[in-house]
């Protein structure tokens, strides 16, 4: 199978390319990138005039829910949602049931993904057994089984000694430790950001300090151990500032934020909108400003979806009882592109945060449109306007706060290993 993508604007931050080029795909690799490639007889020609062609997008923070919570999402539906959102590679968090804290679960996810997944799935293993925060999981064995990082995402590792040893031990395997920074004592019982909105709604708040203090702690532990620390879903101004300072001091720390932390504030919760219940919680205008500043100056390296599907009966209930999390794979790209229109990011920087930056963090041979590389390619129509309609989403769950939002920009073709897995052209 050959594909020839013509007439497009190719943006490949890894290779410093922003040019009008053609791309020839042969089998599962990129054969050639050049101007005016001649069509050969058997190649399927894709006219990408007016479109942007980028390396396949990478989401390093997805919850696929399989095994254990297949009623929320499966590897099949989750990867379909990813493809529709332009993602060719997603990394799935270990908080399944059972938790991905050993080789058996990792192998299950990989074999199921090979059979049913339509994009690349890379598992993230747990730091501790059962993500209980007490004993280290078999990190080395999970690494050799295919895990690309470790994390106890969904909860923080409260015991600083356990976190310290987790960071230290993982150095041998050259994978990052992804920290969910939350002090469980400070956040206990909280349902949204602590601030004016929580005061008026009578909901128990989660102070920003619950995140800020753990970010500072984990930076200190990274400095102590020299381990590679990646901070997940940064939501507060304080976190951004601490990470900025740490980077200046040369500590090996990177971080991600999610589209909802620069698109929404705590006000989205007003009216007890459970689709806006997420952890960490949506913060304030000042935090949104700080997140954008962090994205702009490079403090925040990566944008990840934190796609967290939940079923109707877990969301259309009392706010206190509703589950934390929102789906994001199908809405991330247009929200990221809106940062470009706002002037927060250049198109090149925006694409880098969802291609080469995550690829470098996880040492993947992906995220670039180099000749000979895997043919993971996303074609984006930056002008396409569409409205978020939950009935049209591929994800099995519909818990998005962006319902009815008018979006601009959409992946119109997603190519994984030379195969077209999503097409809207």
């Amino acid at each position, binding site marked *: 199978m050959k594909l020839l993508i013509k007439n497009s604007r190719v943006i490949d931050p890894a290779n410093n390319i922003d040019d009008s080029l053609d791309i020839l795909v042969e089998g599962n690799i990129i054969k050639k990138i050049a101007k005016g490639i001649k069509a050969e007889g058997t190649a399927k020609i894709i006219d990408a005039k007016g479109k942007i062609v980028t390396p396949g997008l990478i989401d390093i923070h997805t919850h696929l829910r399989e095994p254990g919570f297949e009623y929320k999402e499966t590897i099949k539906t989750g990867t379909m949602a990813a493809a529709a959102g332009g993602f060719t590679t997603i990394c799935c968090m270990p908080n399944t049931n059972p938790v991905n804290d050993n080789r058996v679960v990792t192998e299950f996810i990989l074999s199921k993904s090979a059979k049913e997944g339509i994009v690349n799935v890379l598992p993230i293993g747990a730091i501790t057994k059962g993500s209980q925060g007490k004993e280290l999981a078999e990190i080395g064995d999970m690494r050799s089984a295919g895990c690309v990082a470790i994390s106890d995402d969904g909860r923080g590792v409260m015991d600083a000694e356990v976190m310290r040893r987790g960071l230290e031990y993982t150095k041998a395997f050259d994978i990052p430790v992804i920290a969910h920074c939350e002090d469980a004592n400070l956040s206990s019982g909280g349902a949204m950001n602590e601030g004016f909105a929580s005061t008026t709604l009578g909901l128990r708040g989660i102070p920003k300090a619950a995140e800020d203090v753990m970010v500072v702690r984990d930076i200190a532990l990274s400095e102590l151990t020299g381990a590679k620390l990646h901070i997940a879903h940064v939501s507060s101004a304080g976190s951004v500032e601490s990470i900025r300072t740490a980077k200046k001091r040369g500590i090996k720390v990177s971080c991600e934020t999610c589209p909802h932390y620069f698109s929404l504030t705590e006000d989205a919760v007003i009216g007890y909108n459970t689709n806006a219940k997420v952890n960490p919680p949506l913060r304030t205008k000042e935090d949104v400003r700080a997140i954008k500043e962090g994205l702009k100056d490079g403090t925040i390296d990566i944008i990840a979806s934190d796609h967290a599907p939940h079923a109707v009966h877990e969301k259309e209930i009392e*706010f206190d009882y509703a589950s934390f999390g929102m789906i994001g794979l199908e809405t991330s790209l247009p929200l990221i592109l809106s940062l470009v229109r706002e002037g927060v990011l250049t198109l090149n920087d925006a694409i880098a945060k969802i291609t080469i930056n995550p690829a470098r963090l996880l040492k993947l041979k992906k995220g670039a449109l180099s000749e000979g590389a895997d043919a993971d390619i996303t074609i984006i129509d930056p002008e396409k306007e569409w409205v978020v309609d939950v009935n049209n989403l591929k994800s099995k769950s519909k818990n998005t706060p962006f319902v009815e939002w008018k979006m601009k920009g959409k992946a119109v073709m997603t190519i994984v290993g030379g195969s077209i897995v999503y097409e809207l052209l």
Partner: protein
Amino acid sequence: MPLKKDLLEIQELNSDDIRLIIDTADSFKEVTGRDIKKVPTLRGKTVVNLFYEPSTRTRTSFELAAKRLSADVLNIAVSTSSVVKGETLLDTARNIEAMRADIIVIRHSAAGAPYILAKGLKSSVINAGDGCHEHPTQALLDMFTIREKKGRIEGLTIAIVGDITHSRVARSNIYGLTKMGAKVRVIGPATLIPLEIERLGAEVYYNLDEGIKDADVIIMLRVQLERQGKTYFPDIREYSMQYCLTRERLKSAKDDAIVMHPGPVNWGVEISPELSEDKSTVILEQVTNGVAVRMAVMYLLSGEKS
């Protein structure tokens, strides 16, 4: 119809709405003072009290109000319902509505629970207290009582004392009283004052004597005894030393100040027992007025002519 379909919060009402409810309650108070305390206003209507949290006072008050309006009343308490079988709130309510309830009165420990019903049902929904959010009929009966005693609300200085963070009574009263032109102060330990409460128009005091100085009205809130020994305050003894209203302390308020409490009172914790029979204390009058106010609310929501 003067009111919307539901009464969920004071926040969404304006001063005219509040005045209308209080004025209407005035005429129903006259009814509750008669020998035959019943009018046919809601004859043939069904009122369901759906209580997910234990309550004697509020549930009884709603029940009496509905009965005095000649409605049929059904009480559902959480322990006897199918909630224990894991039915969702909306499913439970849909079943009740399918039996043609006209008004559903809900009390729930989770803030926002009445909104789920209001959105999903055609029946009128009355919030009888949702978590730490609002308790609109309590604030309305408090405002009714204040106006009855003081002749006005505007311009009064009203102090609300105690656990503001966890109090739906405090929130509803802050909204209502400020809309009616009163000056509102909140007083309590800093651990029990929620962030940015000043933005609702309340002045914050941590010291009781300073906070009630020259106040016309003092609303004492119930202390949830289970909160002691955690991180909010050391113990009941220390709390009462700081915040229990005594006859001596009451002197710093205006001479004719009244003392209110949504009940049930922990005597000796929030209010010294020496004040239980004092003329300043209007707690039982609040209870009497509660029935009239709830009659007014049900009447106005039903949109019927009496």
